């Protein structure tokens, strides 16, 4: 089974990283602090204002939490794509191309960083806390939405990541550009899109589907109509959008690898 191959690759990565326990722990805490830093920014903002773009602190924190867990998961599973320029420059990508496995899966599993779980832990803590203390009319579908939203968010972030990093096949030093899109989309989706100018909202909703990561699902959880007038069912559409995004990302990646094979390095 192909899956077993990836599991054994992942297993070897974990064993190797856990063998340096202190350094792993420090990295883990650093990742947690990184995520917590964004939380502090939000709290400071709310020290000055009672609402942000029409949303109260707990509402914004739900978006922050969903986006944070989703981004953390994506970072854990596809964050290694940041290494792509190095793989291309050193020719290490050629080695991956010479194996009977998917190139994307190899890049992704080849250097997975377990310490990134720290980020997920911090965001998940906030999300669980805010959800349990907020006034939400819970129902079975909503519970399902609360559980799946971060996972769907991870697929969306992951797809954005793959597409953004594919640029490195054309511009070897495209990493900064790719990071602007990946880390940028995380920052954007942690806030209600109402705080952004209209053009950026449209980009977030339809081009880079950032609004579907946290904003629309959070509205659905809170039973809030969109101040911008988007229909309420959008909050339940994220899985569909994620599916499309993943498909597009797969195609873009294939196209990019073809391009690489067409030009060499």
């Amino acid at each position, binding site marked *: 089974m192909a899956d077993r*191959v990836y599991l*054994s690759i992942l297993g*070897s990565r974990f064993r190797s990283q856990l063998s340096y326990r202190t350094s792993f722990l420090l990295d883990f805490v650093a990742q947690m602090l990184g995520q917590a830093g964004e939380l502090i920014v939000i709290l400071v903002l709310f020290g000055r204002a009672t609402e942000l773009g029409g949303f109260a602190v707990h509402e914004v924190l739900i978006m922050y939490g969903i986006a944070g867990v989703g981004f953390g998961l994506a970072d854990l599973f596809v964050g290694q794509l940041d290494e792509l320029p190095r793989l291309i420059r050193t020719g290490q990508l050629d080695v991956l191309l010479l194996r009977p496995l998917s190139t994307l899966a190899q890049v992704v599993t080849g250097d997975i960083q377990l310490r990134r779980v720290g980020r997920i832990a911090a965001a998940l803590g906030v999300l669980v806390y805010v959800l349990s203390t907020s006034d939400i009319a819970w129902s079975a579908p909503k519970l399902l939405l609360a559980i799946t939203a971060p996972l769907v968010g991870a697929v969306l972030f992951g797809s954005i990541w793959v597409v953004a990093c594919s640029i490195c096949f054309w511009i070897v030093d495209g990493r900064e550009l790719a990071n602007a899109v990946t880390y940028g989309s995380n920052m954007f989706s942690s806030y209600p899109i109402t705080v952004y100018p209209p053009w950026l909202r449209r980009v977030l909703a339809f081009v880079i589907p950032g609004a579907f990561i946290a904003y629309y699902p959070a509205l659905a959880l809170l039973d809030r109509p969109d101040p911008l007038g988007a229909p309420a069912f959008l909050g339940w559409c994220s899985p569909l959008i994620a599916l499309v995004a993943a498909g597009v990302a797969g195609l873009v990646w294939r196209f990019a690898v073809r391009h690489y*094979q067409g030009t060499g390095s």
Partner: protein
Amino acid sequence: MSALIVADRLRRSFHVSHRAGFLRRRRTEVVAVDAVSFTVDRGEAVGYVGPNGAGKSTTIKMLTGILTPSSGGATVCGLDPAKQRRALASRIGVVFGQRSQLWWDLPLAESFELLRSIYRVPRERYRERLAECVELLELTPFLATPVRQLSLGQRMRGEVTAALLHDPELLVLDEPTIGLDLESKERLRTFLADLNRRGTTLLLTTHDLDDIERLCGRLMVIDHGRVLADGPLSELRAEVVTERTLVVDLTEPRPPLTGLPGVREVRTELDGLRQHLVFGRSDTTAAALISALVGRVAVHDVSVAEPGIEELIRRLYAR
């Protein structure tokens, strides 16, 4: 014998852009491999040599599916590398002298274990294959050492093992002995020669002509993207190098032994104790020369010196 590699007018060009004034760039086409055709039969050992930038690596990349040809095509193990790269990957092994296929932070043994599952090698066959490589390449002392701590020689032995675990029909080696010390080179060559004898086809690019001398029955010389010469080493020698040298050690010093039939030049060493007789390959034979010699002087020892492979390639280029 059946063909394992068929290259049919393989061509690959790259676009390179140059700065041509402020913000203007001009694209020029550079041809790395220009309509190269050849066939390698199953069981052959072929040396693919040429200076830097001659197109060796580009050819290898096209044969392994990393790079798609601009035009022309190739068949390797009955597959089209450009279209069936992943299927081909299970049938060939590739060793790059300059890049590793091992996991730098894992012990060598664990890297092998991972490759076993990547190539889905049945456990029983894997065990046999590994045991064989461990014995012949003497890997035991460092099997448990993380790859990053291995010396270059040890790592290369690991790389070759890694490329062979799935029992490939064809082993492609790109500069396998680069940077190795003499002992490691020799050990690797012995192993590869043995591997080839047992049926694995070898295609290697190298700068080290001793590799060819020891390993390859056939030599392909490429430059500027074209194959300059292709044939058995001995035939290429006969074709390009028309002179051989008989080295004669005498029992006592003598003046230069001139006047022998077919000899074009005589050089002496050690006051005439050792003499080099350069003769035309078509004018006489070593045997005729030796029998003519023993009638004139007391001979202690004779040997025939073939021109080195560097000389051979230099002459090919000059042709």
